[in-house]
C-alpha cells in the first residue's frame, strides 16, 4: 500500500490567547490521489486544519500544538511551510489577495522560480498548469482584469505549478458567483480525474463536490464528527423554516402577499425606477432598467458578477448617479435627492462587511446607523438591544467588530440597518457565512419586514433561498434586466436559457446528502 500523503495523529491546536482549542484530537489519513471534502459550520476549525496541513501551524502562528502532522513523510514540526512547498499547496478563499504579481505568466511561474528551477522546466510547468485550469490563452493578461472565477483558477494553477502531492483548497468558491463557482469546481473535478494529486477541499457547496468526492469529513467545534448532526449544515437550504416573532418555525412564506393589516397587494408602488442607464467609462453597467416594487414584496436580484446587481442597489440609494432615468419613492421623484436623505428610507448592507465597520465596539457599531438616520432614536436604540439578543451577538457587545467571524459581521451590519426600520432593505448577499439556525433568523427578519409592508431587494446566489423567500426575481445579464417576474416563472425561464447554476434543482435534497455521508 502507498504511503499516505497526510497522516494526522491526535492533532490539537490552541491559538495563543485562546482557552479553547481550535482543533481537538484530529486523526486523519489521506492517500495519494484521494479526494476528500471537509465541511462544517463557520468557526469549526476547517481553515486551522488547512494551516496545519501546510506547515503554517506551528511555524507562523503562535499557539500550542500537540500530536503529529506528517505531510509527504515530513513532520511539520521540523519542516516550514516553504520547505513543504513542493509537497502541499494551499489555495485560499479570497482570490484577490493571494495573487502577488501583475500578470498571469509571472503568477504561475512565481513558485517554480522560487525553488530555482531552470527556465525551460518552469516554462513547461507553466504551460501544463495553465492548461490544467483552462487558462492557456491567458498568459499575457493582467491579473486585475480577470474575473473572480478566473482569478481563483489562476491561484490553483500557480499552486499546481509546484507539482504538489497534496492540493488543499480552502473554500475556493466562497467569493464567487454561480458561474465562477461552476468554473472552479469543474477544474477541481478535472484535476481529480486527470492527476494523481491528493485533493482536500474545504467547502460548503457540497452539491457539486459530493458526486466525485471519495470521502466527506464533517467538522464541528474543532473535532471531526463524521456524519453527526448533518442537518446543521448550509446545504440544507431546501428544508429550512423561516423564524420570526409572529410565526416561530413556520413554513416559508408563500408567494401570496400576506401583509399585516393591508390589502394583499397595494396598487401604488413604493419604489419605482424608470429607464435607468449607468455608464462606467466605456462600459454600460445598467441599460434602460425599469421596474416597480410594491409594499410587502421581497425581490431577489440575480446574475453573474459584473452584471449590474450591486450598481442597481447603489443607484437606488443614490451612491451612484444614473446617466439617465429616474427613481421614485412613494410616488415622489428622488433622483436628485442626496444619499443621506434617501438612506432614511433605504437601508443598504454591503457584500463585504469589513467595508462598513467603523466603530470600536459591536454595540457602537450596531447603533451607528440609528444615530444618523433613525426618526425615533430612543426606540431605535431599544431595538438594537433586542436585535443583538435575537441574533446571538449580545455576548460580543463590547468586543471589536473586526474580531467577529464573517457570518457575525454580516449579522451585525444587518442589525444596524434593521434597527432604524427603513421601509426598504437593500441587501447585498446577506446570507453568506450563516449556519442553518442563523440563516433562519435572518430570513425570518426579512419575512417580518415584508409582513409589515416593507420591501426587500436582496442580491442572492442561493436559488433554494430565492425559491423559498422571494416573490419576485430580477435577473441581470451584462447590465440588462433580462427577466422580471414571479419566482417560479423566473426559474422556468432560467432553465429555458440553460442557466442551470441558478436553479434550485441543482442543489442536493437532504436525503441525497445523508445518503452520501452514510456511504463515506
Amino acid at each position, binding site marked *: 500500500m502507498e504511503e499516505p500523503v497526510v497522516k494526522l495523529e491526535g492533532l490539537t491546536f490552541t491559538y495563543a490567547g485562546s482557552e479553547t482549542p481550535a482543533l481537538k484530537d484530529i486523526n486523519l489519513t489521506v492517500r495519494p490521489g484521494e479526494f476528500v471534502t471537509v465541511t462544517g459550520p463557520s468557526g469549526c476549525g476547517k481553515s486551522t486544519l488547512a494551516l496545519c496541513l501546510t506547515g503554517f501551524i506551528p511555524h507562523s502562528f503562535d499557539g500550542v500544538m500537540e500530536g503529529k502532522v506528517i505531510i509527504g513523510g515530513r513532520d511539520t514540526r521540523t519542516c516550514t511551510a516553504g520547505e513543504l512547498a513542493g509537497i502541499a499547496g494551499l489555495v485560499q478563499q479570497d482570490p484577490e489577495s493571494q495573487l502577488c504579481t501583475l500578470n498571469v505568466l509571472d503568477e504561475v511561474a512565481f513558485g517554480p522560480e522560487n525553488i530555482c528551477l531552470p527556465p525551460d522546466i518552469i516554462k513547461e510547468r507553466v504551460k501544463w498548469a495553465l492548461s490544467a485550469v483552462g487558462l492557456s490563452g491567458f498568459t499575457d493578461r493582467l491579473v486585475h482584469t480577470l474575473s473572480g472565477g478566473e482569478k481563483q483558477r489562476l491561484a490553483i494553477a500557480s499552486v499546481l505549478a509546484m507539482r504538489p502531492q497534496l492540493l488543499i483548497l480552502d473554500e475556493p468558491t466562497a467569493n464567487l458567483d454561480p458561474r465562477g463557482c461552476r468554473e472552479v469546481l469543474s477544474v477541481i473535478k478535472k484535476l481529480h480525474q486527470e492527476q494523481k494529486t491528493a485533493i482536500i477541499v474545504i467547502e460548503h457547496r457540497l452539491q457539486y463536490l459530493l458526486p466525485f468526492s471519495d470521502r466527506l469529513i464533517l467538522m464541528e467545534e474543532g473535532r471531526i464528527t463524521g456524519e453527526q448532526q448533518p442537518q446543521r449544515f448550509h446545504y440544507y437550504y431546501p428544508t429550512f423554516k423561516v423564524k420570526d416573532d409572529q410565526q416561530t418555525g413556520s413554513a416559508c412564506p408563500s408567494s401570496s402577499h400576506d401583509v399585516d393589516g393591508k390589502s394583499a397587494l397595494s396598487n401604488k408602488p413604493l419604489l419605482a425606477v424608470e429607464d435607468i442607464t449607468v455608464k462606467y467609462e466605456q462600459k454600460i453597467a445598467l441599460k434602460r432598467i425599469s421596474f416597480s416594487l410594491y409594499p410587502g414584496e421581497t425581490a431577489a436580484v440575480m446574475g453573474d458578477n459584473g452584471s449590474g446587481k450591486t450598481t442597481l442597489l447603489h443607484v437606488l440609494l443614490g451612491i451612484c448617479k444614473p446617466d439617465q432615468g429616474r427613481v421614485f419613492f412613494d410616488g415622489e421623484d428622488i433622483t436628485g435627492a442626496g444619499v443621506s436623505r434617501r438612506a432614511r428610507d433605504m437601508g443598504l448592507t454591503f457584500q463585504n462587511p469589513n*467595508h462598513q465597520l467603523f466603530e470600536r465596539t459591536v454595540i457602537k457599531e450596531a447603533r451607528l446607523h440609528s444615530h444618523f438616520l433613525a426618526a425615533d432614536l430612543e426606540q431605535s436604540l431599544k431595538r438594537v438591544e433586542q436585535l443583538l439578543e435575537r441574533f446571538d451577538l449580545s455576548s460580543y457587545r463590547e468586543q471589536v467588530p473586526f474580531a467577529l467571524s464573517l457570518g457575525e459581521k454580516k449579522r451585525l451590519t444587518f442589525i444596524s440597518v434593521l434597527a432604524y426600520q427603513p421601509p426598504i432593505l437593500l441587501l447585498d448577499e446577506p446570507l453568506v457565512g450563516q449556519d442553518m439556525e442563523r440563516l433562519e433568523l435572518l430570513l425570518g427578519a426579512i419575512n417580518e419586514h415584508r409582513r409589515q409592508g416593507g420591501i426587500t431587494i436582496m442580491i442572492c446566489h442561493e436559488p433554494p433561498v430565492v425559491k423559498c423567500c422571494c416573490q419576485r426575481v430580477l435577473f441581470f445579464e451584462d447590465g440588462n434586466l433580462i427577466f422580471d417576474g414571479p419566482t417560479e416563472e423566473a426559474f422556468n425561464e432560467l432553465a429555458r436559457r440553460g442557466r442551470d447554476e441558478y436553479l434550485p434543482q441543482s442543489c442536493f435534497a437532504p436525503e441525497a446528502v445523508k445518503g452520501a455521508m452514510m456511504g463515506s
Partner: protein
Amino acid sequence: MIGVGRLKKNGRPSYSINLKGFLPGLTYMPGETTLHRLHPLIKLELLICYGLMVFALPHYIPGLCLLIILLAAYQAAGMGLTFFWRKLRFIIIFGSLIFFVHLIFVHKGVLLWQSSLLGLQLQIWSAGVTDGLSLLFRFINIISSSYLFVATTDPNSLAYSLMQVGLPYRFGFMLITSLRFIPVFYMELSQVRNAQMAKGIDLEGFSLKKFSLIIRYLFVPLVVSALSKVDSLTISMESRAFGLHQKRTYLEQRSFTRRDWLQVILVLGCSLAFYLVMHRYI
C-alpha cells in the same frame, strides 16, 4: 503629493485619495516606440544621467537644452507636445510661479526694469531672471523626465530587470506587490466611502469634527482590510517557497545583450560630452 478630490462622475468614487489633480494619468502607457522598447535599465540609466545633469548644470541655458531634448523624447515616445501640456500643466504653472517669485524678490546683478505700482516699487534684476529660469527649467525637467520614464517603462519589467542584475528579490517583489494592490485598495477606498454614505454620514460642508470622523471612518476599515490581505498574501507567497532560497531563477531572462551594453556606453558617453560642453560654456 496626495490630493483629496471629489469625483462626482457616475457617483463613484466620491471622495478619494488620488493623484489626478497633480499628475493626471501618471501610469505606464504601453506602446511600440523605440523608447518603449528600450531595456528598462537603460531607461533608468538615462533618467539618472539626465537628473545628474539637471543638478550639475545649474544654469538656464543647459536647462533649456535639456528641456528641448526631453520634448524631443516625448515626441519620439509618441506623446507629443499636446500630451506634455495636457498632463503636466499644473507642473508648468507651478514652475512659472517659482520663476515669478524669483523675478520679483531676487535683487542682484544688473537692474533691467523698474516701475511703481500702487505705491509698490517693482524691480527686475538680471539675476532674478537667470535664477528664476534656471529653477523653472530644473523643476520642469526633473518632474517631466520622471513622468516620461513612468509612462514608457513597464514597472513589472523594470522590477524583474532590477532583480536579475542583483537587487535582492524581496525588494523587487515589494514593488511588484505594491503595484498589484493599487487597484485593489483604490476599489476598497471607494467601497468604504460608499458605506459611509449609506450610513448617513453626511460629508457635505466642512468642520473639524466632520473631518476627523471621515479620517477615522476611512482609515479603520482600510487598515484592517490591508492587514487581512497581507496575512493572506504572506501565506500564498510562503506556500510557494518565497524566501526559501537566497537566490531564485526567472522564466523570462531580461539579461543584457551586446547591443544593450553598447547603449549603456552610448548613454554614458553622450551624457559626459553634454556635461563637458555645457560646463565649459557656463
